[in-house]
């Protein structure tokens, strides 16, 4: 049996899958993430974002201008602990997130 090259371990996304996705038109990093699900698992992209961005760069000829939006939490936390923050952290505070990176899936470089 042939070996698999895992680009995203958490979500079991292989090199073949990423290449297939690029061929089928997912030619920016946000679309590629949405199509394959890389970076949506336990590590939230700590391992795979760079590997996928490099494969994308090799295929489409340029490295992505910005990464996918780094959403909280960047580190897994139990829901009970998140709930415990309810009194200390109000919702309107949490809405004032200083978001950086290509947001809203509009492709690279959009702000």
């Amino acid at each position, binding site marked *: *049996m*042939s*070996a*698999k*090259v*895992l*680009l995203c*371990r*958490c*979500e*079991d*996304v*292989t*090199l*073949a*899958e990423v290449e*297939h996705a690029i061929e089928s038109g997912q030619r920016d990093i946000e679309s590629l993430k949405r*199509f394959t699900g890389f970076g949506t*698992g*336990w*590590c*939230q*992209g*700590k*391992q*795979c974002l*760079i*590997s996928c*961005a490099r494969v994308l*760069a090799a295929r489409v000829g340029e*490295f992505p*201008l*910005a*990464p996918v939006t*780094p*959403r*909280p*939490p*960047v*580190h897994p*936390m*139990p*829901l*009970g*602990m*998140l*709930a*415990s*923050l309810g*009194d*200390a*952290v109000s919702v309107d*505070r*949490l809405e*004032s*997130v*200083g*978001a*950086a*990176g290509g947001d809203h899936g509009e492709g690279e470089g959009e702000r």
Partner: protein
Amino acid sequence: MAPRRIDPRSVRAASNDPNAEVLRALYAYAPPDAGAPCTIEHDGRSIAAREGEPVAISLLAAGVDTLSRSVKFHRPRGPMCLRGNCEGCLVRLDGEPNRMACTAPSRDGREVRSQNSFPSAQIDILRVTDWFFPKQFDHHHLMVRYGTTINEVMQSFARKMAGLGTLPERPERAPAPETIDCDVLVVGLGPVGLSVATALARAGHSVCAVEEEPFVGGWMRDSLRWFDRDGRRVCGAEASDRDLAALRAAGASVRVSASACATFDDGTIVIQSDRALWVRPRARVFANGCHESVGAFGDNDMPGIFTARAAARALRYGVRVGESVLVCGPQEDPELDALSDALSAAGATVHRLPEGASLIEALGASSVTGALVGKGESDAHKIKCDAIVAPTSRTPAFELAGQAGVEAAQDLDRQCFAARGDEFGRTQREDVFVAGSVAHGGRSPVRERAIVGSVEAWLEKGRGR
């Protein structure tokens, strides 16, 4: 599988082996057998462990390579990073799902269970998924062509199989969070974070310094090279402890096992062990370093594949990752050279990747038994080994700074993203600063002083208002 504990006496006895020098200094400073012997249970089997060492290290030492199964293909997985960044060691621990065995300490009676596998992570019949989908698992087109009924059956099956672990037996209760108001929050206590936090605390600012690992020092703690402290050569562990003592003496509030999880305009959420902290600083310094990812080669997720730092960390706890270890990565890399020397001193046979050759594929059915290496397909040859220190990319951990509003800029030379800061650590947000490799800055006292100066200037400006 042979047990992999190192006898520290044999390392001490090799006093005329220059390769063993740093390891000997490390074991003299922090004996790996200092923890009391204890017994943990893994899927019903008793495992001899040492109190305080990470559960994943105890299991590795006992020859247990496979701790979990991957989410779709049910491929065997084991600890790879040993620093809480990957999914390889996720287990059910004392009835709690999804605990990273590399971050939880062993103590008598701890119960480790595999999850997401049947009947166990060692033998998981769901591995057939891996063979059924030889290239990829395309969930967009899965079974679509066989009609809606089959598709619905598959969907419901897939939903049942999805997710990690099962709910805990008891509902979680987290203690009330602690709110911390301070002048500066420093995230990440590697060499740069330690230095910047200490300087700021010495200047009289209230500093809250958080580190996600249970100890400070970052890569320096695990490094098998010498460091200079007070005119003396010391091992990385001792250098880290000395820096920590200096930080504490300067009056900073130091939190270890404290992960900054999310950053908002008004504050940063940090989880420290089982409690949440809501930190509201006037300035934030991100010194949280790099992520490490293993390169793209065949079966690069197999148990027995480690980052260099993980292999060095295992040695620190008195465990070698294998009897015969293939060390990949650039020739004449000082960290890799030091690691190779220490592995040899610890009794392992070390193979380095020949000049110009690369690792093509890891070989083995469920854990590493060899590697296919070469300059190309025609030149490929097999090396017998039971562990691989994989080629690794270190790339800036820009995510937290990104949430705080700092741009993650592309770095075309290194093909990665880095938090954008100037040589004074300043970013587009005047209250947010970046230090060290998170922004591709190296370790330099001049630069660290400049960053401290920028933070102080901002704090001063804020006071004048």
